[in-house]
């Protein structure tokens, strides 16, 4: 691990039950101050990987190293101090529905900082202004659209100016305008704050447009390829090409493993 590496995934194997591994001997390195995209189809363990970094789960094998220190899920105090250095954007925002937009963004400030109400007010408005939603501060969460919710969640994720921002499917379910706005925001936030950004997604073009480095994962929780976006774009590996071009069949099969169709229909072989 060199000094430029902020987070290292070191031969990690993990599964929710022992017989079905989600991640299989995965190794990755995330460079300090860069945007790294982790691409892959649904169910290949991308979100699980983010949760392992946040210490929600403990790897069955291998280790996760955060800024030179192994993530230890058993030491609650250390884990919480690590999490204070993290911001995470959840796939559907995970906004607190009983709080207003303003209170959602103020939440981490109120919980972790001893700031005056005036200071909280100013920071919240600055964060909301950065995502273009200062005018929506007093709305309830039920009154905002999916795209707006994602941007509010982003404002909340960066409220404490974290060193690492993790994005879980930031483009899923967004219209083209919201998608472009979100992609720009991620890149701009990274450049202005110098944070290390990890982005889990299956939207190839948006990720390639803003990522500095890319990992491609495949079903079974393995890393198929990694490199700069243009390197993956030019790859001749059939699995990489199938994912990037969105081909329905290839090394990754369209059909879930099953008995022959004719046999199931009772037709003569």
């Amino acid at each position, binding site marked *: 691990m060199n000094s430029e590496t902020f987070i290292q995934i070191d031969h990690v194997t993990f599964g929710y039950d022992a017989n079905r591994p989600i991640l299989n001997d995965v190794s990755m390195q995330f460079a300090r101050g860069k945007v790294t995209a982790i691409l892959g189809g649904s169910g290949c363990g991308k979100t699980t990987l983010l949760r392992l970094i946040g210490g929600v789960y403990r790897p069955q094998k291998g280790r996760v190293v955060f800024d030179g220190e192994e993530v230890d899920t058993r030491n609650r105090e250390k884990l919480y101090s690590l999490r204070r250095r*993290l911001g995470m954007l959840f796939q559907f925002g995970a906004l607190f529905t009983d709080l207003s937009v303003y209170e959602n963004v103020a939440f981490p400030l109120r919980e972790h900082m001893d700031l005056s109400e005036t200071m909280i007010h100013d920071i919240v408005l600055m964060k909301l202004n950065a995502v273009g939603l200062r005018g929506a501060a007093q709305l309830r969460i039920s009154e905002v659209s999916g795209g707006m919710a994602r941007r509010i969640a982003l404002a909340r994720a960066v409220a404490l100016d974290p060193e690492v921002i993790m994005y879980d499917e930031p483009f899923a379910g967004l219209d083209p305008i919201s998608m472009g706005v979100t992609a720009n925001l991620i890149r701009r936030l990274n450049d202005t704050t110098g944070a290390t950004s990890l982005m889990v997604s299956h939207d190839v073009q948006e990720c390639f447009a803003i990522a500095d480095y890319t990992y491609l994962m495949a079903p079974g929780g393995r890393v198929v390829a990694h490199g700069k976006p243009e390197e993956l774009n030019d790859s001749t590996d059939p699995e990489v090409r199938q994912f990037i071009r969105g081909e329905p069949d290839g090394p990754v099969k369209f059909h879930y493993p099953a008995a022959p169709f004719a046999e199931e229909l009772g037709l003569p072989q």
Partner: protein
Amino acid sequence: MIALVNALGQATLRAFAGLGHAAYFFLDLLRYTPASLRRFGLVVDQIYAIGYRSLTIILASGFAVGCVLALQMYYALVPFGAAESLGLVVNLSLVRELGPVVTALLFAGRAGTALTAEIGLMKAGEQLSAMELMAVDPRSRVLAPRFLAGIVSMPILAILYSAIGILGAWLIAVQLIGVDPANFWSIMQSKVDVMRDIGNGIVKSFVFGVICTGVALYQGYETQATPEGVAYATTRTVVFSSLAVLAMDFILTAMMFSTS
């Protein structure tokens, strides 16, 4: 036969593991509860949501039960010439038993299910995970204030239930049937013991508050984060809370009111 014994053993082990898990959760909840006093605003919000918003059903039920109790007891006591004991019978029934027990059952149905559904949906919407990843413990921020609010609200609701029940009984017995009002009130004053009767009733409702709120929070926190999971958890909240309240009521009554 071996398969049957094996299945029985597995089921027993699972049941004990479940009980152990629930006990661990409950101890955790107790550990976090004192700290929630520092977030007093959250506790007050929850007392409003859990306690104040349960008032309508509690008061309506207390009033109706008081009225019916007065009527039934009058019919039962008159043949023995004991109508003057009506106030006492109604009062003791309400403060010792019906107040705490019926309030707890109504609380489990009204506030318990709301708590379970709220926590379950927060889990399904990843709000609890988001809190965890923001280095905020949901047990301290979400569960403990609700738990404290539940155990504060329940005795108050039970007292109000009994009070409105006695008023209902007074309305029927004194205003409608014509029982002597002096008799109705004075026998309560002379025979109802503040500590033994009212105090024990409040202790009961406090215990029921712990049970109902604890069960509701546990079911919500441990629910499968799916619509079916939340529906199943809310049902279990009512069933488990009600059974636990009825069982605990028997134990507490035996302990509190034994004559020996």
